């Protein structure tokens, strides 16, 4: 069984801060990580490898430094890695990103593609289903459990108000939720091996894709403007003992006709 896991290198957004003077993102000193949903997808693939034997390839699109995320994936136990990196891929929205990743997947052997549900920097959850559409294969998103039965996966698919159990025959794509497992750490031997492996870097010339469909100019959507949220003016703050605090709250709720 061959599995390709798509991963994205993202800034650890739980540490993202806004520079109050300039109103822009402070990127310095913010560590880059493998996107959490993707990492759980990788762990799920590695568990299948442990149980039944599988070749696990990790695929990432990003700037040259995304190689670090792929090295980490190799050190966790992935067999091979491919980096898609080319200036021509830059500025892509989800449509163009999924077009590029699908073109790379066409060059690889796989029965199953695993993506994370969504990346913490964009939160769109679009790239996985769009890759599947470009490849003409079924997908199941929001997967919280995954096993292989013969030539198919059987997954638990989460909804807000319940879940479904779904069987999808190979070839297919799933998008993984980070809650599905706890990703393993890199092993010492794995780290050593990871740095001996060569990670091929594929650019536009390596893919069979229309240049008009990738990067910024292949993206149907554009960012027109962006701004940091201004805070509304804060209300009054009282530093009081708990009893007095409770009394003040009730008084204000009465004034506001909330109670």
């Amino acid at each position, binding site marked *: 069984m061959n599995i390709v896991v798509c991963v994205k290198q993202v800034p650890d957004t739980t540490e*993202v801060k806004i520079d109050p003077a300039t109103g822009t993102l402070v990127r310095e000193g913010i560590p880059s990580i493998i996107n959490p949903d993707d990492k759980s997808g990788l762990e799920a693939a590695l568990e299948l490898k442990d149980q039944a034997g599988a070749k696990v390839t990790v695929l990432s699109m990003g700037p040259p430094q995304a190689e670090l995320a792929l090295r980490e994936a190799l050190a966790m136990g992935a067999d091979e890695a491919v980096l898609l990196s080319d200036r021509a891929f830059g500025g892509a929205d989800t*449509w163009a990103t999924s077009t590029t990743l699908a073109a790379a997947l066409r060059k690889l052997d796989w029965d199953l593609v695993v993506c994370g549900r969504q990346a913490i920097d964009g939160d*769109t959850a679009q790239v996985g289903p769009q890759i599947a559409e470009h490849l003409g294969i*079924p997908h199941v998103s929001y997967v919280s459990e995954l096993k292989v039965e013969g030539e198919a996966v059987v997954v638990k698919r989460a909804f807000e108000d319940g879940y479904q159990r779904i069987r999808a025959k190979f070839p*297919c794509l799933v998008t993984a939720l980070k809650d599905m497992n706890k990703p393993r750490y890199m092993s010492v031997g794995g780290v050593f091996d990871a740095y001996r492996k060569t990670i091929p870097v594929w650019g536009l010339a390596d893919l069979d894709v229309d240049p008009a469909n990738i990067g910024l100019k292949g993206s149907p*959507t554009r960012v027109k403007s962006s701004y*940091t*949220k201004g805070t509304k003016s804060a209300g009054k703050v009282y*530093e009081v003992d708990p009893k007095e605090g409770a009394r003040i709250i009730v008084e204000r709720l009465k004034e506001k006709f909330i109670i």
Partner: protein
Amino acid sequence: MNVSEYKGVFVFAERRDGAVQKVAYELLGMGRGIADALGEPLAAVLLGSGLKDSEAAELIAFGADEVILVDHPDLGVYMTEPYTKAVVKAIAERKPGVVFFGATTIGRDLAPRVSARVKTGLTADCTALAVEDGTRNLLMTRPAFGGNIMATIVCPEHRPQMSTVRPGVMRKLERDGARKGRVSRLAVEIEAKDRNVEILEVVSEKVARKNIEDSTVLVSGGRGLGSPENFRKLDLVADELGGLVSASRAVVDLGWVGQDRQVGQTGKTVRPDLYIACGISGMIQHIAGMEDSGFIVAVNKNSGAPIFEYADLGIVTDVNRLVPALAEELKAAKAER
């Protein structure tokens, strides 16, 4: 692509277990404003099996000019491919300029698949929509980087312009039973090969859950409460106010309460009339999920906690001693009336 051929606004009216979901009415409320700004009609697209005319009538009462019913036995339970096929067919036949989906686990599965098939852009989890003067393009605003930045996205050269919209963000209209609209039916062929996955089991868990998005009062707890026992005391206050208890991500990660109670960027967006934040410091990811609440009260022992910048009323004190005192005060206030 000639963008001027595409006219009208579509709302995907999500339906589960035979019931049109609240988010569909919210989208109609917002979509009505967009359609009016464009001077174009608003249509609800309702997919299902055994659809009733009364369901279409409700969608009209909440703002739709037209309801397009796609009724097929294979559309009873959500499955990606049959739903994609039906929505793509409706788009191909009617050429709408705009399509909205709820940013639910169904909308966020279906919309990207549709967008890839019709080759158009899709903007996820929008919190504000508007029509740009002059170009008449849809301006789609969404949070990025955990809610730190708001980005306005356009899709100038492809149609339809599509976006998913977070549930709980838009207001539905007042129901107007006298509103007129038309109902049409669209046939879709779904073949065996379109049922390309097999649903083995459907499990509903909603009986056990109360939905924090629907509560007008939320008493929300954070790590500052110190223990799961203290967290559970929030029930005392919530009960007095007829509200529900919600939580910050930290508390959900600690396992004090289930994820369905989580407020914030990775949880739910809520806008109750009253939000009482107890022992919540106010990380931006949390703020993104509750800042539009009507009246925000924050209780925290740390006067420097960012939550106070967003609160209408702040109390710096020992939250664990305030909670029972507040429950008592509320009980007394009730007795006075």
